[in-house]
């Protein structure tokens, strides 16, 4: 991640089947980013189906999808929500007026309102770490290696390897947002 100048597109690949709902990623994110009590930048969606012995239980990690065409950025009246050239969607907190239009426009309900600061916040892919060449806190923490973070434009990278050899889906593609979290099947 160190070679500057080359075009990048950060994304996250998730192998949800490995997820055991330990929520280490949620805790790591809260600690790394000082997320207030009661608010979350990432979470695990549970689905239960059937009854013993025929039953299914799945865990799907969710968070901001760092969309290709982020509707949150489009509706923001002040330009506080923006997308970096490497695809990471961020909020310029000093420009955010707290109108919460972006929260309503996000199909993934990925944003939360910080009452204490009067601004909106969400997952940043831990830019503070990524820009130092480290991995996002959730990725580094996950004990069962569900999360793979990297650069989609890196032809020899792990992301490309996974996405060319495995089947995957993205969530709610019909919204046209172009989510950049890839869920392996």
């Amino acid at each position, binding site marked *: 991640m160190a070679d500057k100048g080359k075009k990048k597109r950060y994304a996250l690949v998730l192998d949800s089947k490995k997820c055991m709902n330990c929520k280490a990623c949620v805790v790591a994110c809260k600690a790394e980013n000082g997320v207030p009590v009661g*608010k*979350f930048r990432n*979470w695990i969606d549970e689905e239960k189906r059937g009854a013993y012995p025929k039953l299914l239980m799945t865990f799907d990690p969710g968070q901001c999808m760092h969309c290709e065409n982020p*509707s949150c950025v*489009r*509706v*923001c*009246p*002040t*330009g506080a929500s923006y997308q970096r050239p490497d695809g990471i969607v961020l909020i310029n907190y000093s*420009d*955010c*007026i*707290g*109108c*919460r*239009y972006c*929260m*309503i*426009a*996000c*199909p993934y*309900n990925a944003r*939360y*309102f*910080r*009452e204490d*600061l*009067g*601004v*909106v916040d969400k997952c940043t892919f831990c830019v503070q770490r990524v820009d130092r060449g480290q991995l996002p806190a959730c990725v580094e923490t996950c004990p069962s290696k569900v999360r793979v973070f990297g650069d989609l434009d890196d032809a020899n990278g792990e992301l490309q390897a996974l996405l060319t050899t495995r089947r995957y889906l993205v969530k*709610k593609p*019909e*919204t*046209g*947002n172009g989510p950049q979290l890839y869920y392996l099947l």
Partner: protein
Amino acid sequence: MKTIEWGILIVNYLFLGGLSAGIFFVSALATYLQEDGQPAYPRIAKYGAMMAPWPVALGSFLLIFDLGNWYRFYKLFLHFRWESPMSIGSWLLLVFTGITFAAFYAWLPEEARHRLFAWLPKRLAFLKRFDLDLSAWRRPLAMLGFPFSIGVGIYTGVLLGAVQSRPFWNTNLVAQMFLFSALSTGTAALILALSINRKSLDFKQVRFLYTLDICFITLEFFIVLPYLIHGELSVRAVQEALKLILGGPYTVAFWLFFMGMGLLLPLFIELWEMKPVLLAKATVHHNKVLAAGAAFLVLTGGYLLRYIFVYAGQISSFR
């Protein structure tokens, strides 16, 4: 996390913004239409000009109050983002509010204006030079205000309709629905003002307002209908969203209170009042109570429409 972010303040704001747009539009029309070089409907023109600035001023205040950082609201005017309906709307609202206050001033009766300036403290006496007669500006201001009043009326709907993540809103019909509802509530507010006034109802002016309102309500009705049909024939997410008003929590509010009492009942009353004009060359019934009642129903219906859309829309989402 799924939360209701826009609450009652936003409902009020959308309603009040639309109300001002409607009042101004009708008042401007009454100013623009002339007979023998005089406004054809002087009382409507004047009442409208006196009333139009206040709802939108209050609404903008509520909107700013609802922000997480209200003192940063000026940042709305440091940027123009054509992709963001809120950005376009803020600019529209600013210009429109300015025009409504200018029209207000131009319509202020002369003695009232003098009295206003007489209140000024000595140190601000230099402002007295603004004690000008702007009555010649009434018509130009009306014409300038037309596009902006339509713009504000339609923007309140675009604000919701342009959000593709909320299937309940995401159709261009919401913009038209809110526009016609805005025009109709504005007309109703003027009917109410005329009917609670001590002066007797003036046949010509009442007929003008009834005619307009019947048109606006009919247009609104024929937007709501396609909205429902179109939604039912749309993709699953939209069909599911429509369940909120077709059996879901907002069904009674929508059908009984909005459609029934807020749209069709006042339409019926207004048609009934106009029956003598429509069927024979007689005058309108001149019933102040019915007029005020119909106007009140239209206003509540308009408010309810905003309420239902703001709340139901935020609940709706893609699965």
